[in-house]
């Protein structure tokens, strides 16, 4: 019918869905709301939204179960609305495949920024992109075949594991990656509890990629959750 991106908001708090519906509509999104996971999943099946924003604690079906069900049938971007104190469930939801989170209470800009980033990511990876020989994102130029990394035009020498980790970050730019996800992807399933591995390698990568006088961070720590990669660098 129209090409407005469709967003499904799932929250049991009617006042919040009311605000989000209005706020998102005013930014050119098509919005529908559901009061719990079950209703949310039904709306998803009928309406096929481009993105889902969901609360975690809800009656009937909570956000966690909704993530699980959605991931079983779709790669739709999922943004979680979580409160402080729900860190454990939040990480669980991210491990289940949710893409990002916003902590309550949040400003609408923060949510909109996450929505835009998630929609952009979803668009840029239609299916599995063909293995590009050279990845060019932000300050990075990576020749995958030669395993050669250039940052801001300067060559950087990485160990094989550091290289694998960087490639994984680059391929998932902007997305929150939990410790669990990174360890499983780069080191394999036996290492998912070895947070200290990750910390050491992220530390080394930072030393090699980030320059102190630039005040830029590429690898952003999401406390208690994991890391987020910004190829353009975030000013600190």
């Amino acid at each position, binding site marked *: 019918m129209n090409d407005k991106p469709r967003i499904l908001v799932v929250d049991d708090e009617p006042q919040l869905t009311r*605000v*989000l519906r209005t*706020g998102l*509509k005013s*930014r050119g999104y098509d919005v529908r709301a559901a009061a719990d996971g079950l209703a949310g999943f039904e709306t998803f099946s009928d309406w096929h939204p481009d993105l889902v924003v969901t609360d975690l604690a809800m009656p*009937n079906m909570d956000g966690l179960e909704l993530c699980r069900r959605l991931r079983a049938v779709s790669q739709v971007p999922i943004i979680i609305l979580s*409160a402080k104190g729900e860190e454990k469930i939040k990480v669980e939801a991210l491990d289940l495949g949710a893409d990002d989170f916003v902590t309550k*209470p*949040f400003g609408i*800009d923060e949510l909109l920024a996450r929505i835009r980033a998630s929609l952009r990511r979803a668009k840029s990876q239609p299916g599995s992109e063909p293995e590009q020989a050279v990845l060019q994102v932000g300050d990075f130029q990576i020749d995958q075949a030669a395993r050669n990394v250039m940052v801001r035009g300067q060559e950087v020498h990485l160990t094989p594991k550091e290289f694998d980790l960087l490639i994984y970050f680059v391929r998932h730019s902007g997305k929150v990656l939990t410790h669990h996800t990174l360890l499983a992807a780069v080191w394999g399933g036996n290492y998912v509890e070895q947070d200290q591995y990750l910390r050491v390698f992220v530390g080394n990568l930072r030393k090699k990629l980030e320059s102190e006088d630039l005040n830029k961070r590429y690898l952003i720590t999401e406390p208690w959750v994991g890391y987020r990669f910004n190829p353009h660098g975030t000013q600190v």
Partner: protein
Amino acid sequence: MHPVATALGTVMHPVATAPGTVMTYNDSVPANVLGNKWSGYGGAVVGSALVTAVLAPFHQQINSTTVALAFLLVVLFVALFWGSRPALLASVLGVFSLNYFFLPPLYTLSISHPQNWIALAAFFTTALAVGQLSARAKRRAEEAEAASQEIQRLYQELQSAFERASHAEALRQSEKLKSALLDAVTHDLRTPLTSIKASITTLLDEIRGRSPDDQIVALDAESRREMMEVIDEESDRLNRFISGLIELARIEAGELHLQRRWGTVEEIISTALARAENLTRAHQVILNVESELPVVRVDERAVSEVVYTLVDNAAKYSPEGTSINISARRSGDGMVTMSVADQGKGITPDLRERVFDKFFRATRDGDISTHQPSGTGMGLAIAKGIIEAHDGRIWIESANGPGTRVVFTLPIGDEEFTGEADYAAEPKQVV
């Protein structure tokens, strides 16, 4: 007599100074043990000397068997009080004294009759046996005593360990409860705040004219009004919640100061209904107040709050168009019984007590799975506090049909109420 006195002097002397002096030489041996040991030998000497001194003048009148038995007694007592070594000394002293002072020829160590040799040997053997056996018995008794004391000590230690453990467990439980309550409170505070923040930032973006990604943001009048409404309503909700918290804290601290006055039940109900008018618009409110109800001596504002809470709940948890029944009647025991009944889904029997717990919400915490508007989770807890402060009772009646019926009682209160002095000054309305 003289040698005895000398012996007493030399032997007893160390006993008197033992505690101080001995301790300096050997810290690991308690002074009283050594003292006891020396006093044991002293006891043996004194005992034997006493028997000798008392019986010697009469050695003509009493036979030597009696004397031997007296010495045996000394051995027995020394063994019981001080153990085997002093008893051995007492035995030797007994043999010597018996021989020297009592067996002819007197005041020599020789013995004229061979049978007395046998008697003396028998005495010595018996004394030895008595000394050793009774000393052993004493040691056993002491050991048993020590063992029982040790068991007692271990038991007490164990008991106090258990007490500490159960205290820690209780503390842990109460901490758990506290943090669960804190979670509930933060959730209830954060939820309206989230809606307010989202609304305000939406409005702010519009005022700035552009969003951070440079999209032009335009809200129509309708959307703008909606945002403002949300802010207004959610601020009220926050305020209600905070007022509820304060009220609840007061009730729990026992600081609910009732302003009791004489008032009519009709007035209390109509005040509550006027406040709840907006909430009950979609429902039919039926009043069933017995005529000629006595005036009641209550805090009208507080009781009206209770009625309001019950009517609010009834309206919230029953379908539109159904009726809400409010009744008041006099019950026999000097009480007025009031009730608020709705035609909603009702509350399952297992939740009927728990709904009066603070922060408990049947719609969220119970198993009622439909999505319904939720309150602060404090209304019924506060109502219960208010009613109980009036010495009334509140409960949910098991209704026959569907719906929930909350009943509470209030004492009518008579003129001889045991109120505080300041109430007495108030004008009293007499029935």
